């Protein structure tokens, strides 16, 4: 089992500090941050770029993206009434931490500390995650990992440093999978992005080290508009893990990330995410990968919390024999709507795809599966498999599915299964008769339901996710 280590991202760049707003969650904002005025304009976009000392082409893309964002109407599908509530004028698009003084652990709200504790997260790490210490212990671990990766020619940087140090690689791929004009939120992200990861894995290199070592870093650095780009060169492989089961308490109400993956021929990228946002957050994320010949892209995506999440990890199967997998779980509680799913486009022959979506709704929460799979006329002998399961824990909670399949080639083999279930009294009674309280029994059922997802996670995160769900089930019995 991989050792958990939390590591500081390298490159003491100004850009990285720019994502320091994560710390501001419960911190008096006057204390240590330089804020831009609220609201967005071309001027603000140019200023951000200038502050980061970016090349001109990046400034240009940002400005174009901003214009597109301003003109583009809001999506007319999904939870439009929640979307309409977003007040773009009332968002600060850039803040830069001017110092990294430690916050006071006493200021961290009790319920957050309790959750950390009950998830079994060590105190040093709890403090780090809460932004009360500047860094977590494992810097040494990080350095040795980095040295190892560097020896193999792997580039692993935060996105801002990536742009500084490898402008030509970034320029080649940035916006190549998700053009800024893809949707309103990808345009917004492109205009104001900060933070995120940049990874390049050279030909034939296998990053054995699960990149989960960076897990907590990314949890902490997860900016409001992070931008991630991963390029896996021919025959290489990488498993990237981001996010955190611990709650990300944030006062920023809008989070809109963009993640682009490029899997060159024969390579394999697995991208695992768990996000647990506080219930004021709009989490509107665009994630897409391109798989070239015989390449494989897997999205493992867990969404907990937030007010509204709209996230449909996508794969374009561009090369013959490529494969896509999207495994996702969503948990929506009171006042929350998880609108999640997957998109897969079969553009080439002999491509295969698999979508497994699991959603749980409780306390009036709402889970939606929105999926789209297409097969182009030229793509022969494709195989697609879609399974979506929903578990509804009480009356008043809701689950919808919006599956779309557009198959323009008759040789395709398509399988689609959907189920909606409720926890039955008899199932609970069975578990209770084995000595488990009602809450424990419910947690067993819920964790069992998520198991096909959980087993894809590194062990320690799987354990944490189970514990988190057990916490969520507490007090849920009427």
């Amino acid at each position: 089992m991989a050792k958990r280590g939390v590591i500081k991202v390298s490159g003491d760049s100004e850009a990285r500090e720019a994502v320091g707003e994560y710390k501001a969650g419960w911190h008096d904002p006057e204390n240590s941050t330089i804020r831009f005025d609220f609201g967005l304009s071309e001027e603000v976009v140019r200023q951000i770029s200038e502050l980061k000392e970016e090349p001109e082409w990046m400034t240009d893309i940002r400005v174009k993206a901003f214009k597109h964002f301003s003109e583009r109407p809001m999506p007319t599908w999904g939870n439009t009434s929640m979307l309409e509530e977003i007040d773009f004028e009332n968002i600060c698009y850039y803040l830069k931490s001017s110092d990294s003084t430690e916050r006071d652990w006493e200021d961290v709200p009790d319920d957050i500390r309790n959750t950390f504790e009950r998830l079994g997260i060590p105190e040093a790490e709890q403090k780090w995650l809460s932004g009360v210490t500047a860094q977590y212990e494992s810097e040494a671990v990080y350095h040795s990992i980095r040295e190892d990766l560097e020896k193999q020619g792997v580039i692993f940087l935060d996105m801002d440093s990536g742009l500084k140090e490898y402008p030509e690689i970034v320029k080649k791929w940035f916006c190549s999978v998700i053009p800024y004009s893809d949707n309103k939120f990808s345009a917004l992200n492109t205009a104001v992005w900060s933070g995120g990861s940049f990874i390049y894995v050279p030909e034939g290199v296998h990053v054995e080290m699960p990149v989960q070592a960076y897990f907590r870093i990314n949890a902490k650095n997860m900016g409001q508009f992070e931008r991630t780009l991963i390029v896996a060169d021919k025959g290489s492989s990488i498993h990237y893990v981001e996010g955190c089961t611990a709650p990300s308490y944030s006062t920023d109400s809008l989070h809109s990330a963009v993640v682009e993956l490029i899997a060159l021929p024969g390579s394999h990228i697995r991208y695992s995410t768990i996000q647990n946002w506080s219930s004021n957050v709009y989490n509107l994320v665009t994630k897409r990968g391109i798989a070239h010949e015989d390449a494989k892209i897997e999205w493992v995506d867990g969404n907990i919390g937030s007010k509204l999440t709209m996230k449909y990890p996508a794969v374009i199967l561009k090369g013959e024999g490529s494969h896509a997998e999207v495994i996702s779980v969503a948990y929506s509680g009171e006042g929350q709507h998880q609108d999640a799913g997957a998109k897969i486009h079969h553009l080439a022959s002999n491509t295969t795809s698999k979508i497994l979506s699991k959603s749980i709704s409780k306390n009036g929460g709402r889970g939606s599966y929105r999926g789209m799979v297409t097969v182009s006329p030229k793509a022969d002998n494709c195989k697609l498999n879609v399974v979506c399961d929903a578990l509804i824990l009480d009356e008043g909670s809701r689950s919808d599915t919006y599956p779309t399949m557009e198959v323009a080639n008759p040789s395709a083999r398509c399988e689609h299964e959907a189920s909606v279930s409720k926890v039955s009294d008899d199932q609970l009674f069975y578990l209770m008769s084995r000595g488990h309280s009602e809450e424990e029994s419910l947690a067993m059922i819920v964790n069992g339901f998520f198991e096909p997802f959980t087993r894809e996670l590194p062990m320690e995160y799987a354990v944490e996710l189970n514990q988190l769900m057990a916490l969520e089930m507490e007090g849920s019995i009427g």
Partner: protein
Amino acid sequence: MPGENTLLEIHDLHVGIDGNEILKGIDLKMGPGEIHAIMGRNGSGKTTTANVIMGHPDFDVEKGDVILEGESLLELEAWERARKGVFLSFQYPQAVPGLQVGNFLRKSVASIRGEDEAKGSVFRKELTSAMESLEIPRSFMSRYVNDGFSGGEKKRFEILQLMLLKPRLAVLDETDSGLDIDGIRTVSEGVNASIRGTDSAALIITHYSRILEHVQPDMVHVLLDGRIVASGGPELATKLEERGYEWLKEE
């Protein structure tokens, strides 16, 4: 034999659901080390009796009491009863997809017998030998609880839980139905080993005398329309098998 000290006492038990009375005054006493059987037609209230002993929340106890070792169970939830030593082998065990058998067994033993009992090599040995005696393949450990189990596999898995949880009172609801001939013998051996000569007791609900030939119950009770209409020794089971239930109605 019965009387000296009582493990379970059911007293004038009336039970309804949605306003319909299902059990209409049941009395039953069992002592430690005893095995009793309940037989009776479909729909006579056997499973209801078992459910009420275990604490199924859907049933309303309108009158009477269920007492284990001098203490009424009625105010306790099912999981509390389980921790006091009540066990039910279900007529229809429930599947829990995604919950691994090994994990489930360990957690159940921990919650009923205590954390320490579920740890270490002693528990693993206990588990392995119980599985061997019930001829449950090791591969079941990583399967999901009752998910895709055959009828007989479900019943063997119930008895595996019985053996590991070591209850004071085991209620077996048609555990023999769906088991093959060897399975019935294996299960009977398991029941005998868990009860005879111990201070535990078992209540076996069945339609067939075959299992009773193996376990030789101390008493056989016949349930008819929510009442116990006859009680006797093992010979009563044989008589029922030969003559059916009709003659009891006349008496």
